[in-house]
Structure formats: structure tokens, C-alpha cells
């Protein structure tokens, strides 16, 4: 039992990271009705950007500029934002008057491009991801927890609070919601809708990049694996109907904890059940769809 409690708690920071990725997905969806499938690739890219900035070839080999983490991290975040801006500006804005399906396929193209670039630049071998969290561990009530996990949990909680504050209480947040509801009306109210939707891409990419940076030491630094790790985050976004942050956080908790616990469940551990973790998440995606499917259908094609 203790094992499960421990795994449950270990799952919370993972849930937090999923929530960061999903928040970006939701932001973009709300502002432009596009489901971006590139979010995982942006997370992966963010992790590699930090690696590139921080890694010191003299010490650990590989590529890199060897900047200290205190410079590398903010710079990586800025670069992720720039990446988001570029994606929106160059690839998605020209598609605005085209069907949503086209934009979604475009995000698949971006995903393909980013993973290919990362693969060719840094290779497909596992790399040692830079650690941004303090090392060491703490024992609370008989459960051992790494500082890194606590750090991630705290950081994601802070970021989520900031996002909620931004959405609910700032002019910018209100503008974002207005653009999401009715772009044309928002424009008539003098809201620079273009700038608002670009901003959602910037913020979404920053969140994804941070998530990738936080996840890569836990999972591994590999272009494909890190990209696909966003799938549970999509499940969470789905649970929030691609719009609702609070429900998304609940969804993120479910998938995060599952992600952590499933491999330890006995029948899965004996390897009788192949791909248990992924299959469990897939099952969750399906269940979430049945929970939220109907409401979204009506949104998309009004009768």
C-alpha cells in the first residue's frame, strides 16, 4: 500500500507538468479554435534548447554553449516563446480563413518538422538532460520524496495560479476570452485580435517548453519519446472539453497519477500486459471522450 501512496504522490508533479502542456493547448484552442498537435514537439524542443544552451561540451561531451543554468533557463523560455510566435505568424495565420482541419494538419507538419530537426541536430540517442531542480531528498511521514519532484510540483502550481489569474482578472485575459467567443465582435470592440491570438501561441509554447524542461530529467531526452509524452496532456485537455481549465486540472491529476501507478500494478509488472501505461492512457482518452464528447459536438456544428 505504501508503494501506491508513494507512487500517487510521485504522480502529482507529473500531473502538474501535463497540466502545463494542456493549458497551452487550451489557450490556443480558445483563441483560435485550433487543436495544436505540435504542443508535445514544442515541449521536446524546449528541453533541447535548454540542453543546447546549458550543456558544456568540455565536461560532458555532445553539443552546447555551456551557459550557466541561471542564464540558460530564462533564455530557453524566451526562445520557446519566439518559437511559438514564429509558428503562429508563419504557418498558422495564413490559414485563418481556411477550415480548421487544415490548420490541424499544419500543426502535424510542424510536429514532423520539429522532431526531424531535433533528431538531426541532437540525434536520437538518449542525452543527459540538464537538471534545474535542487538535488537531494526529504522524508515526510515515511515517504521519500526528491526535491526535484517537490520543486516541479511547486513551480507548476505557481504557474497554474498565474494562468488562472491572467485569464480571470487581467484585461489581457478578458481580451483572450472575447476573441475566443467571437473574433469579429472582439475586433469591433477594438481588441487587436491578431495580437491576442499570437500571444496565446507565445504563452502556450512557453508553458510547453517549461513542461519539456521539467519532464526531460524524469523521462528522457529523446526527440520522439518526449514529443509523445504530451499525449496524456491531450487527454487532460480533452477532459476539460479543450476549454475548461478546472476540469482539465482534474483530468491531468487522473492521467498523471495513472502514469505513475500503472506500471507498478502486479499484472502489469509481470509483463503479461504489454504497453500497460500507454494502453491505460489510451483507455482514459476514450473514457474522457465519452464524458465530454457530446457537448463539443454541439459547439462545432450548430443546428
Amino acid at each position: 500500500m505504501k508503494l501506491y501512496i508513494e507512487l500517487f504522490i510521485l504522480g502529482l508533479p507529473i500531473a502538474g507538468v501535463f497540466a502545463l502542456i494542456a493549458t497551452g493547448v487550451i489557450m490556443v484552442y480558445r483563441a483560435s479554435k485550433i487543436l495544436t498537435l505540435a504542443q508535445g514537439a514544442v515541449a521536446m524542443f524546449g528541453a533541447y534548447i535548454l540542453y543546447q544552451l546549458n550543456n558544456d561540451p568540455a565536461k560532458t561531451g555532445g553539443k552546447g554553449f555551456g551557459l550557466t543554468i541561471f542564464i540558460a533557463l530564462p533564455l530557453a523560455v524566451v526562445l520557446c516563446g519566439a518559437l511559438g510566435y514564429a509558428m503562429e505568424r508563419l504557418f498558422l495565420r495564413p490559414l485563418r480563413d481556411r477550415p480548421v482541419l487544415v490548420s490541424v494538419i499544419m500543426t502535424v507538419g510542424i510536429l514532423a518538422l520539429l522532431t526531424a530537426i531535433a533528431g538531426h541536430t541532437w540525434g536520437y540517442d538518449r542525452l543527459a538532460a540538464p537538471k534545474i531542480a535542487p538535488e537531494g531528498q526529504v522524508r515526510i511521514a515515511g515517504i521519500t520524496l526528491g526535491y526535484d519532484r517537490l520543486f516541479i510540483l511547486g513551480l507548476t502550481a505557481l504557474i497554474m495560479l498565474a494562468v488562472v489569474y491572467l485569464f480571470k482578472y487581467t484585461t489581457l485575459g478578458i481580451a483572450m476570452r472575447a476573441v475566443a467567443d467571437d473574433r469579429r465582435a472582439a475586433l469591433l470592440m477594438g481588441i487587436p485580435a491578431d495580437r491576442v491570438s499570437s500571444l496565446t501561441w507565445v504563452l502556450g509554447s512557453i508553458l510547453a517548453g517549461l513542461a519539456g524542461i521539467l519532464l526531460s530529467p524524469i523521462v528522457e531526452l529523446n526527440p520522439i519519446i518526449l514529443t509523445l509524452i504530451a499525449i496524456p496532456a491531450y487527454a487532460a485537455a480533452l477532459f476539460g472539453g479543450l476549454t475548461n481549465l478546472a476540469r482539465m486540472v482534474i483530468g491531468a491529476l487522473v492521467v498523471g497519477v495513472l502514469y505513475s501507478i500503472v506500471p507498478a500494478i502486479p499484472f502489469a509488472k509481470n509483463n503479461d500486459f504489454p504497453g500497460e501505461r500507454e494502453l491505460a492512457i489510451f483507455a482514459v482518452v476514450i473514457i474522457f471522450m465519452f464524458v465530454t464528447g457530446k457537448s463539443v459536438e454541439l459547439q462545432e456544428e450548430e443546428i
Partner: protein
Amino acid sequence: MLTRRPLMRWVLILFLIAFPFIFPSNWADMAVRTSILVLSLLSVVILTGWVGQISLAQAALMGVGAFTAAQLTNHLNLEFPLHAIAAGGAAAAVAIFIGLFALRIRGLYLAIATLAFQWAMEASFLEWHPFSGGFNGVKIDPLKWPCCDFSDVKLLYFLVWPTTILLILMVANLRDSKTGRAWFAIRSSEVAAKTLGINVTNYKLLAFAVSGFIIGVAGSMNLNYIQSATPLDYNFQRSILFLAIAVLGGIGAIAGAVVGAIAYVFSDQYVFTLADFLKDKTDLFAGGLLIFTILQNPAGIIGVREQLREKAAERHARKERRGQKRSIVLEPATETGAALEEPELVGASADAGGPPPVSGAQQDRDDERKAASQRLAAYTSARGQRMERSSAAPMLEVRDVTIRFGGVVANDAVSYEVRPGEICGLIGPNGAGKTTNFNCVNGLLVPNSGSVRFMGQDITDKAVHGRAKLGMARTFQLMRLFPRLTVFENLMVGTHLQNDSGFGSNLLMLGRTKTEDRRNRDRVKEVMSMLGISEHAESRVAGLPFGILRLIELGRALVTQPRMLLLDEPASGLDVSETDAFAEILFKVRDEMGHTIFIIEHDMRLVMMICDYLYVLEFGRNLAEGFPQDVQSNPAVIAAYLGEESVA
């Protein structure tokens, strides 16, 4: 499908037969790879290009096919043609499983579901040893028949290409039959498809099954080609690659799959080996080209020719147009089509006083208009003397229908009936709940309480397409045409219910399907000429004037041969003369074709002109009913709706 000219067809067949003998053996090898890729892309074309469902799990499905075939070969000694069918069947079953979720959800969610599925299957393949052999995969012995040893690619070529061509031909048959039309309809508007009697659920699942079967067969062919199947062959990157090449080739057409596959295999073999810096960079280029294609030319490579032709045609048309003041501008659109494109359905606005939809010289038009208004007046005055409703049993009976949206009561115990042979109207101020009620009659909404009876049956809970089958057709206030199809094709979708031929007959284009097809074409032509839209038959719907669009939607409803037509504000957006022409057509529809008409309309002039009987709603409740002249003078109606002064 391959080509329409018989001579070219024979040349092509001879070329394909001679191919492995003329060219070096590495070309035969490339040809085999191409054929496998063609089938893979074809599955994407069907699902994404034709039905509008994004699937990122095609590689996983291909893997299911390959591993199934491998296990059958090794354990049951089942070889190529047989294990290919089994592989297709297995992949189709899995695809239907995914498709089941697509029923609940729409395109966007499906992308997530298929992504998660691909991810899960990849992990399963790696660990599920009995099925996939784990990381190293499964190996099989090269296929050997008493006559020939297929480890020689030149012989394998004669196995895979005929299979590919057979499947292509069958898919082309499906595309040209009611199945294909149903798919195209679903892609544009599921709601419209339902109202035409298309069982959206079944047709979506069918698309998943067909697409799954094809990629499963491709998987088995790939197995025979490389004599092994490993999880890495069917990973996520492969799924993305399929989508990318399909878009690059042209995702709306079979030719796109063929061209995309040839281009990919050729450049993989020759272009990417040209220089060191290009080596192994196909993934990079696939991603980049996918983005480039979407931005520059969504119809893909096969669209280039069409684009050029259109540009030439446009130049030509511009020259001809000089001197003519007005003209109908057809939006350029391609047959092979920017399949992903859904042009917006905004008709070129017909300003007041513009020509009526039926064209002709100005003088003729004026005469025609005068005659029309005289005829209309005759109809209306004939109706004016009729002061009682037919005593026949009601065709449509709505009893105490209540519909709530959250706290808002859109319909509050609304009741009315429509008798056969009538033109019955439902009117009321904006927000009275007319369209909501219509959606309920039509099945798009299920009422919270109350009942709807049609032709003596309780249909309150019946599916939309089931109601269409009973003889109910409708048009929409905001039209739901299929913008990428031509006018003729739009009407052809309406013939869906007039087909009895099954899937098998469609697949093989049997005589039955052909006869039905001919009959339907004639019927569509008849309706088009009755409506006076024959001249637009081959035009794409997007960009036609509003008045024509209204007629097309009416025509599409008419070809379903309905007992009752539900028209939702058919005159909105029409000018006076167009409205008159429309009214006359409605009389024809009722008197000559015998359809009962139930109409929601805001244009009081039209309502008073054509309706035999009226129901008035206000704030979701029945306010009044009666013959037009009575309703017109009913003080409650005047107060609620017509304002202080009565309508002229």
C-alpha cells in the same frame, strides 16, 4: 479510373506488364515499394480526404496487418493472398474500433484518440512478444509457390501491383457510387447528410473499415517484401509520413496517392542520395514539404495541373467578360480538389432589381416576370376562396412539444398539425422558437416532452436519417450545401435513399448499381430543369448567387422524393422577383409533384401569398392559428408580430 481513353488504358497496362523487364531490377524493387505506399496513402485519402477524419494511427493499423499476416504465415501456413485478406480484416476490425469513438466525437478529438492509439500500439508491439515478437519483430520465409519464388522482386512485382490496382479500381467504384457521395456529404456537413437519409454512423464506420482493410493489406504486402515485421517499421513517424506524403500528392484524389507514392519512392532512391548533406533527411523534407504544400497549394502535386488550367481558363473568361456588365463569377475550384478546403458558402449577393435566377434577354425576362406575377395572383386568389382545411388525417402532428436549453424554454407545449397536400406556414417574431421546433420535427433535437407523429407513426425519438426515409426532407435557413461538389453532385447526394444496391454491388459496380445510377441521374436532371438551374449543373456550388443556392437546396430536398418538405426561411436573402419565382416553384412542387409543404418564413408577403393555413408562435408558445386572411387580421398577432399597422 486509370484513364478514360481506352487506348491509353491498354498502353498503360502493357507498360505495367513490361516494366520489370525493361528497367533494371532496382526499379522493380522501387515499384514494389511504391505499390505498398500507394495503398497506405489511399487509406489516408479515403479517411482524411474524403470523409474528413484525421487519423494518426495508420501506421499502427498497418502494423496490425503485418503482424497478423506474419503470425498466420508462421503458425497456420497461410500465405499471400489469404493472409493479406486476413490482415486487411484484422486492421479493418481495429479501425472500426477506433471509428466507434469517432461517432461520439468530431474530427479534432479523433486526432487525439488516434494519436493515443498509435502510441499505445507502438508500446504494445514492443512488448507483446507472442504477437509482434518484441523489438526484433517476426520473420517469415520468402513466399514460394510451386511455380515461382517471390524472393525475386521482379516476380513479387506481379503479385503486389495487380493487388494494388484491383483495390484502386474498387475504391474508385465506391467513390462514384452512393457510398462515395455519402462520404463527401459527411465531410462537408453531417447534419445535411443526415437530413438526406444518410446513416452517418454506418458510413463513417464503413470508411474506417475500408481504410483499415486497405492499409492492412499494405501491411501484409510489406511483410512479404521485407520478409519481416518489426515494431519500428510501424511507428509514429511512419503515420505522420503517410499523412505528409498524402497531402503532398493531393489528399483529395486517388491520383494523389499514386503520384505522392511515386514521388516519395523516387526521391528517396535518387534525390536524397545525391549529396551527403541530404542523406537520411527524408523526414526533414517530408515535414517541410507538408507545411509548404498546405500553405502554397493544398491540392498537392496533382492540383498543380488543375491550377494552371484554371489560371488559363480565368484569363480566357476575363477576356470574354469584357463588355459584359454583370456576370456570375464562379469561384475557382478543382475537381481533384483542395480536398481539405471547404469554401465558404456565401453566394454572390443578388442585389435588388438584379436579374432573376432564370437567365434570358431583358425583354423576355420582363414579360416572364409579368406573366409570373399574374399566375401567382391567380393561385393566391384561388386559395382565397378556400376557407376550410382538408379533412384528411394530419400528416404531421406535433403535440405539446417542450424544449428547454438550460433555463431557457424555447418551446413551451407547442402543438399543431399539417394536413396532406397543404402549404402550411409557421410564423412568429424572431426568437419565437420556430427553427428550434423545426429541428425537433426533423430529429436534430429531441424534445424534453411532447410528441411528434408523422404519417401516423410516433417519430419523437427517431433518428434524423430514419425520418428522411419516412419521407421528410428539409432545407436550412443558413444553407447547408456541399460547397466542394457541383450542383449536379449536390442533387445526386439527395438520391441516396433511392438506391437499393448494397456495398458489394457498389464495390464492383454491378449492373444494378449502374441502372440505379442512370435512373438517379435522369431524376436529378428532371428536377434541375424544373427549377431552371440546369445551366449551372457542372458549376461548383461555392460562389453561385444566393437565389440559385436556395433553389439547389430545394432541389436536393426534392430528389429525395419526400412526402413533406420542411422549408426554413427559404426566402431570406432573396429579392422580390426571386421570391416570386420561388413562390411559383413551391406551387408547382405542391400541385404537380404532390409534396406537402411546411414552411417557416419571415417574408409576410410570401407567407400570405402561398400558405393555406398558418400557425403563429410567440415566446415559444402557440399564439394563434387560422387561414392567412384571418391571422392577418387577428389583433393578438398584429400586436405581437406585425406591429401596429397591418401588412399590405
